[in-house]
């Protein structure tokens, strides 16, 4: 049974054994690899689509086909970026899980009370912003794919396609920026966890062992 306490500037939970991984960390351990594989597939597909589109332009292909390929290529490539940023976020969560579970197990092995850092504010923001950014990029990419199949070979339709592309370009770039900021916060959380571990390790020798 864990109890929540606050000391110095760390909010901690005290227990008799390691608290193990929390839910986001378990998800991180499970999902980093599928996301990594998806990213590689989307990047490869995006590159192939780019070459196909270049070939169409070179051969003087129809304007609507070229515009369609532009939307599809951007959508696929940015699904790749969404996947790779998700994989990075999950890998960071996995690292935080190693600190949480491993740090607790080391304290338990030393027969001291197990103190675990409660989830810091930066970690909560990391998860929240990651979800927002992921949704932003995925929605923008899906809209690219939806709009791609709504293009006719008329000046009005082609102009609409161009306008939509410019808007979605800005939106997905903003999604990438928010994702990078979320990753920054995830890494900043590691600094805090490392500080806590260093402080806690130095405390252990002065504490009485529990039974």
């Amino acid at each position, binding site marked *: 049974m864990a109890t929540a306490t606050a000391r110095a500037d760390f909010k901690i939970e005290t227990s008799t054994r390691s608290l193990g991984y929390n839910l986001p960390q378990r998800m991180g351990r499970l999902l980093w690899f599928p996301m990594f594989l998806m990213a590689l597939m989307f990047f490869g597909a995006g*590159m192939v689509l780019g070459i196909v589109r270049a070939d169409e332009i070179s051969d003087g292909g129809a304007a609507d086909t070229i515009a369609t390929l532009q939307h599809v290529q951007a959508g696929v490539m940015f699904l790749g970026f969404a996947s790779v940023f998700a994989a990075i976020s999950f890998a960071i969560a996995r690292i935080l899980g190693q600190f949480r579970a491993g740090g607790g197990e080391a304290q338990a092995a030393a027969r001291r009370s197990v103190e675990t850092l409660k989830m810091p504010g930066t970690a909560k923001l990391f998860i929240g912003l990651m979800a927002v950014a992921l949704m932003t990029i995925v929605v923008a990419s899906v809209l690219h794919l939806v709009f791609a199949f709504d293009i006719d070979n008329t000046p009005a339709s082609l102009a609409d396609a161009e306008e*939509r592309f410019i*808007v979605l370009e800005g939106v997905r770039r903003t999604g990438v920026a928010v994702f990078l*900021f979320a990753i920054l916060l995830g890494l900043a959380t590691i600094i805090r966890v490392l500080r806590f*571990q260093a402080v806690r390790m130095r405390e252990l020798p002065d504490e009485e062992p529990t039974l």
Partner: protein
Amino acid sequence: MTALAELVKRPPPDADPTQKLRVRNVAIAVGLAGVALVAAALVGNLLVASDDAGVDNLFWTFGVSITGFATLKLGIALVLTGIVVRLWMRVDAVRAALPHLKADSDPEGNVQYGNIETPFGPGTLTEKAPGLLPPQAMARIMWKPMILMGPMLVLVGLALSFATTGADDPDTSQALWAWTQGTQFLGEAMLLAGISFLLGTILAGLREGGGEVQESLGLAVKTLRMPTSAKFFLVLMFTGLMLGIAQFVLYGIAAYVDDPATWFAWLGPLRELSLGILLSGIVLALFTIGTVLGFQHWRIRQIIETGR
């Protein structure tokens, strides 16, 4: 930059671990500035889409967006330097605490040095702490020039993007636009390579620190052999960086060709592929760090429980 280099030097063993690192807050502020730049570029894109601004404004919105990404990556690099410093403080804390926590045990008799199996993969058992692996030694040197050159190239590209916006002559515009894209994405690739090298520096610190702690206790030193994920990380990192350089050279050619639209159509995905591969390498580097940390916690527990 000198101050940044100082930051990754090992803190003294008696450094106060309760003291907060200012670099963490600076990095968050830098990251927010990056988000603001990209948001400003988004406004530019929306104005162009609604016909309130000319299409040529898309050149500078591109430049500002990429500069925003570079600013965010610089923030991430700053956080990683903070992690390197904190890892050394953790090493010193573990080294100070373990002699008081480890179980009493008789000296080991005939120790069989060589290859061992651990729950985290193959490792080695040695009398002394093993040195750094060549890629780790390289990472410690290389992150600094990469982090220095990356932002410089991105800023040169930003200036070129503004010059493209104001260019009237089509040939000049084509050349400037090609160099803008090539230069900025080479800068981005270098920044990501710098971040990769910083992750390699973290892995170097984990290896060196883990060996140092075990050796200071007079124990046989258990070290993980280079995991497969680390080998793939190196392959992806160098592939991504090479593609980043290649796209720069190819944009240099595209600046003066007769059919730039064809060239830009495949160079755009190529430059994104180079960053995507570098980012994929970073995923594997982070996975490797997680594995090494799991091994270290397992080893600390083993020393506490068995004294060996």
